[in-house]
């Protein structure tokens, strides 16, 4: 087990949280000595770590083809900001041109403020979504104050419901539930990583005719509803590994971790590993992301 932990340590820079309670104090002490920071108090912290491997892998988020030299520092929030830019909500009033008003002009600014608070709640529940700016509603009717209030309330209610229904559906309309659900869906890769890490490659395996390339956390023909997929693998520590042409860091244990952003629809992921002996291995995955 110590070899596995050490391999993980070499993949992440320092912050490792063991998933799974370690009741045995001797084992816990050993893990601490190996550099394990904490024992699964929050599984989502593991996801944050996995999503924030502070390495050049980061540029895969922003530029799968080219390269970004300025690597951002470790930022836990980044896990929620890697969504593709085009992922925007499009069901709010699309009329951008306000109607002409010759009599009484009533804007829905107050209602917008109220709606905005709902938007904020929804945004927290769906942090990866970017909401468009709210339009101004202009109503030109000869009405009294309560008329305006009633209509304003109707518009507000309609907008609120239109925004809320697609997100909450038949699930409990709890903000924290929605937030935690989005986290939980992404989590299964994490305990797999820590409870069933790839077996360490031996010198004999690395020195054979074929360069070993073992990949976990990703399956071919997978259909997922995530914005990114995290996978990891093993190869020789001196191997050069690329994912769709972009290099990734390989630890001295031959381990590497990739957090790859997905586009809506088909995604083709090709992992190539080569060494200086001229051995090359590859694995390809086709994934459909429903975003």
């Amino acid at each position: 087990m110590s070899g596995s932990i050490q391999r993980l340590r070499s993949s992440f820079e320092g912050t490792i949280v063991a998933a799974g309670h370690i009741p045995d104090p001797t084992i816990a002490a050993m893990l601490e000595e190996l550099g394990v920071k904490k024992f699964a108090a929050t599984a989502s912290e593991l996801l944050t770590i996995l999503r924030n491997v502070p390495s050049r892998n980061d540029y895969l988020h922003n530029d799968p083809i080219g390269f970004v030299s300025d690597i951002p520092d470790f930022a836990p929030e980044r896990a929620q900001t890697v969504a593709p830019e085009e992922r925007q909500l499009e069901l709010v009033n699309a009329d951008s041109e306000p109607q002409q008003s010759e009599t009484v002009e009533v804007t829905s600014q107050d209602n917008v403020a109220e709606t905005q608070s709902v938007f904020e709640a929804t945004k927290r529940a769906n942090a990866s979504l970017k909401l468009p700016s709210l339009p101004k509603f202009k109503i030109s009717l000869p009405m009294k104050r309560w008329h305006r209030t009633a209509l304003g309330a109707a518009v507000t209610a309609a907008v609120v419901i239109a925004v809320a229904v697609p997100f909450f559906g038949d699930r409990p309309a709890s903000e924290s539930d929605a937030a935690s659900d989005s986290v939980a869906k992404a989590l299964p890769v994490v305990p797999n990583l820590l409870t069933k890490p790839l077996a360490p490659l031996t010198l004999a395996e690395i020195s054979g005719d074929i360069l070993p390339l073992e990949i976990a956390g990703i399956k071919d023909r997978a259909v997922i509803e995530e914005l990114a997929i995290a996978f990891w693998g093993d190869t020789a520590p001196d191997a050069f590994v690329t994912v769709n042409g972009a290099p990734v860091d390989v630890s001295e244990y031959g381990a590497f971790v990739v957090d790859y952003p997905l586009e809506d629809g088909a995604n083709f992921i090709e992992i190539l590993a080569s060494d200086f002996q001229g051995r090359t291995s590859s694995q390809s995955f086709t994934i459909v992301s429903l975003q």
Partner: protein
Amino acid sequence: MNRFTASFTNLARPMAVVLLAIAVFGLLGIGDSIAEAKETRTAVFGTAVDAPSDGILEVVTRDGIVMLVITDDTRIDKKRGTQKLDQVTSGTSVIGYYTESDDELLAGKLTFRKRNSKSSYRHVVGVITDKDDDTITVQTDDGEEVEIGSSDDPTDDETEEGSLIVTVVETDEESGEIDAVAVRSAEQTISRLNDAIGHEITLAQEKLLKARMSATASVHLTRLYETLDDIQAEAQEKIEAAFAEFQTSYTTTLEDNLISPPLVLLKGKVLTRSSVQVVIAKNGNGNRSYITLTPDVEVELPNGSDGQLGDVLPDTWVEIYALPQTKISSPIAQSIKIVPAPTKPGNSGNGNGSTGSDAETITGTIVLVDNGNSGTQRVIVVDNPDGSDGAAAVTSDTTISGDDDLVPGQEVEIVLGDDGFSADEVVVVSSPSDSTDATATPSPPVEYKLIGKIRELVSADVTSGSVSGVILDDVYLSLETFSPEADPLEVGQELQFTVIVDEDGRWVVVGVD
């Protein structure tokens, strides 16, 4: 108040109520339909049976044939390496998703690719024999000279003429020009491995790293040695200088780690041998290597047993590890391994069974046999070893050998016709054995232990107040299939939950400690 405003006032209140109701229920319907549309999207991995006709694209998948309706809302992937809708023909790979509406399958977003389409990226390994600001010239181990546009990746390793590099290159489909995307050098890699030995690693890993350092250094020097035979005379001086430089550097690094100096590996057919020298034709060609022999040189026979120098006879094939000299023309043999004559030259090794260059053949296991829509042909879907699917139509003209019946589970080789979809020949390589794993008991789900503090109790049914889940720190755990029999759960409790991950990816509690 005139008559108009008075009547309006009387009507406005019910009008407002009606408007409110319409707005609420109308938008509720929109919301429902949007939510439903999201829920019914279905992924498709398949092969086009034919070019789309009248807005219908017939696709064969593992689940059978689906008829996708191409609408104005259908989005076609336009990324490089993909095909446009009007380029789709029989055999084109179709990946994406669709939604169901009124018994029609409406194509949502689709990506079309040629069967066996190749990535525009590949790795090139070789020695830099020439370099300027814009390009590097690389001599690969199979003697090919490749000119590559320089990479501008700031994380690239520093290189020079004589460096052994592995680079990922991108080939422009139209011009054929090759550009490096990123470069790693053997010398920098050895330096990284050397640095890693100073980390807190296991002794076994330290041993492994040292072995890899030694192997990489030897490969670099060997490649430099071989490159001298392949390049023009004017370039040899630079390579010889690089050889001396790297040999000195590597020897120092390895000796610092108590590792023997790097050796060069010379392969070839023995031409002559005396007690002090052996001459080999490298790789069997006209390039000769003169290698000094010493009395203590080790000889290994093809069966792995120890041999003697007398076993190294003319026309035998050998692999000689030799210590290169400063003047690299006469390395000193350290070990000689007698090996069988090579059957065919070339590289070996590909991790997961590439489909190869023959685009007209599909090899794999049948996962579906469908009678098709036309009734005149059967369609079979094959799972390729590399994970991708292939599909072909079995017509009356198709020759089937090995087994008369095509059934799922058979391993087959399919030779496609000119249209890229009809099978000219299907060879059944093997049939599924009688002992299938259909009756095997599915393995129980993996259980995980999560410990944390309950932040919130979640109830799906407000009226009953039953707890359907808990927020453990910021992770939602479902209690749909588990109810703690002992003390009720309370916010603030610090507990250990035993959970599994269900098919929907949710954490489901199966126990509480």
